[in-house]
């Protein structure tokens, strides 16, 4: 569903992402992890069609993002770490707006269920300025879920949520994956990544230094056997790590 081949992105003299290759299949949740400045956000933004790759190929649900951007984006949903909402549209108007963009014909049927799932029923006519950070995050997620995308890109999806909201969001992500959506998730919350991701891609200085399931990574690095993802992550991205 998400195929990345030789993704390379350069800003002036800075290489933000270097020859990155990976894929996320239908129903998979893949975690994109790495220290600050590793190139995770640039990768997600390139996959969302926001930044133009210097070279490389991205395919979303079989559509080449460079050659057929509209078709590729129609199958995609992107939830950034800072939810961007329109200040003069209410919660329910955001959903209707998104429905028009993605041609969601059953939007009126979906709205009650979606608002219930995101616990936003009482805020359906509220403007974003009246919502808390967590509610804004939920609304951005609601807009992303509305058109039942084939692929989802989530950048720090739990930011600003309370414990109950985190649990609900985690459950939503799992359900969507179970329904066949390919999900690429970037987060610093390694417990979350460990709990819901089937595989991880560990990035450092714009490159993938490890990828695969925990077992795959341990197979590559037997010295890391028995460690948690957090310990594994720290070992992989430390300056002493091989290839650093």
């Amino acid at each position, binding site marked *: 569903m998400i195929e990345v081949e030789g993704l390379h992105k350069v*800003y002036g003299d800075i290489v933000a992402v270097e020859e990155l290759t990976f894929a996320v299949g239908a129903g998979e949740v893949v975690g994109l992890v790495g220290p600050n400045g590793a190139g995770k*956000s640039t990768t997600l*933004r390139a996959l*969302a*069609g*926001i*930044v*133009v790759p210097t070279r490389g190929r991205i395919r979303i649900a079989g559509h080449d993002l460079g050659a057929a*951007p*509209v*078709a590729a*984006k*129609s199958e*995609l949903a*992107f939830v*950034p770490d*800072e939810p*961007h909402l*329109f*200040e*003069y*549209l*209410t919660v329910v*108007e955001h959903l*209707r*707006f998104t*429905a*028009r*963009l*993605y*041609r*969601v*014909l059953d*939007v009126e049927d979906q709205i009650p269920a979606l608002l219930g799932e995101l616990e936003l029923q009482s805020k359906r*006519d*509220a*403007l974003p*300025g009246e919502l808390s950070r967590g509610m804004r995050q939920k609304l951005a997620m609601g807009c992303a879920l509305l058109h039942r995308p084939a692929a989802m890109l989530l950048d720090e999806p739990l930011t600003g949520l309370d414990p109950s909201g985190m649990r609900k969001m985690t459950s939503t992500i799992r359900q969507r994956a179970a329904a066949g959506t390919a999900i690429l998730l970037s987060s610093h919350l390694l417990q979350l990544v460990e709990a819901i991701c089937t595989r991880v891609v560990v990035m450092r200085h714009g490159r993938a230094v490890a990828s695969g399931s925990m077992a795959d990574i341990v197979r590559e690095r037997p010295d890391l056997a028995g460690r948690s993802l957090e310990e594994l992550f720290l070992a992989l991205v430390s300056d002493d790590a091989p290839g650093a």
Partner: protein
Amino acid sequence: MRSALVYLAWRSTANRVARQWRRLRSPRYLVAVLLGAAYFWLLIGGRRPSHDARPPAGPWTDVLVLAFLIAATLWAWLFAGNRRALAFSPAEVDLLFPAPITRRGLIQYKLLRRQLPILVNALLWTVFIARQRLHAEAVLRVIGMWLLFTTLSLHRLGASFVRASLAEQGRTGLKRRAVSVAVAGAFAGTLAFVGWDMWSAFSATSERGLGAALEAVRSSLARPLPRALLLPFRWLARPALTTDPPAWLRAVGPAAALLVAHYVWVIRSDAAFEEGAAESAYLRHRQRGRAPRPVKVTRSAALAATGWRPGALVWKNLLAFRRGRRVGAIAVIALILAIGLAALSFHGNGASAEAVGWILLTWAVLSVGMGPQWVRNDLRGDLPKLDLLRSYPLHGWEIVAAQAAASALVLTLGELALVGLAWCSFLGNGAFEVGLGERTAVLTGALVLLPGINLMAMAIQNTAAVVFPEWVRHDGGRAGRIEALGQSVLVLGISTAILLVFLAAPTAVVLGAVYLLRDAMGWWAWLPAAPVSVGVLLWETRIVLLRTGRIFERTEPLVTSPMG
């Protein structure tokens, strides 16, 4: 601590200038700067350089300048937001407010930060008004402009403190600000009296025609009371309007005294502005370019899930415009005005309504050029959300077209309202040279032409936002100050020049068609000519939108929006 604030102001300004300088490494910015410089050079070099270079003086110049100053003063007291006068950034709020700095120190810091834009604008206004090169006399005028803008800026700040104090502390605030309130009240009372006097002079002579009525108004300003009322404004304006060095030296004293008086007034205010300024700063930051005003959620027209996809953006922008302003109230006022003006046009020889009609028509014409600067519910407002826009399943040209269409629609409605009101003002005027039928023909032609012209004008503005995102003024950063108008005038001049280039072919078409059909149809020849002309204009607009769309698809949001 004061040295730290000076350091902050100095380094912030120096880094900002350095950043703007570095931006010129980008060829598109460099070319734009060179074109801007060429335009500027033409502006001041169009005439032979003259040491005399006086501003365009006429019998009405003095009146216009005074009217402008009075309007600016009234605006400061009646409409300018209490909380926006001292515009702090969130970083300043977080770092400076908790620091051991006095209120006076914070105000002085903000006044210091304002000096660079004021100086730049004083320079620009000197060029715009007097078209002077920088010789000695021009320097005197720049100083005069600086005095004028700085005093107006201080007045706005002082007025905002008084208003905030009255709003938040009620009777206690009234006691604390008794002198300021008394002076403002006396001024308002005198102004109302003088206004009534002028209206009486106008009404008494309106039977003799508009020109005689306006002349009577001007004469009434020479009476003792109006002269006394206008004296501080004349003091303030004189150094900016005088080029003769001895006269300037005589004029600068009173103007400088006014500035010092304002500075003392503001510095001694000791207004508790922190809470309001902090709230305003965070609101501006959060809303990123939207008016920080509480919004009443009104019912929206339904948006179907089917139809032209970019229509969602048009719907969103129109909704934002409607919710950001009291559109319903404005429509009701316009309707009442239309009825009132139509009735007034039948009264006497209709001179009063005619005067209003000409003002309305002037505004309608001005809004064709300036409207695209005022109506900004398009890509210019949405630039901070470029990430979001680019993730939508839409082509670049579709996004730009939808954004431009929303603004063009709003502007067209406003212009048509002005033209319609003007039509009502001339309705009963039998002495008017152009008959009712011809006027109706022109109004109908405007109905057809204006949407096309406005769409092109907005396409140009949105193209500028895409090509030069770092130069786009975000409304959130706008302090609405008079002294910042100079930059807007420069932008206005350049964008109007581009619009005129695109209008050349459609204008030739419309004039040609009118010429060919005039014998058969008279003024009604406008009607078939206008759609043909609009067709040409739309073809040009399509080319602009397609090209801008391609640039939009290649634009890197990292450059425009640091949020990603």
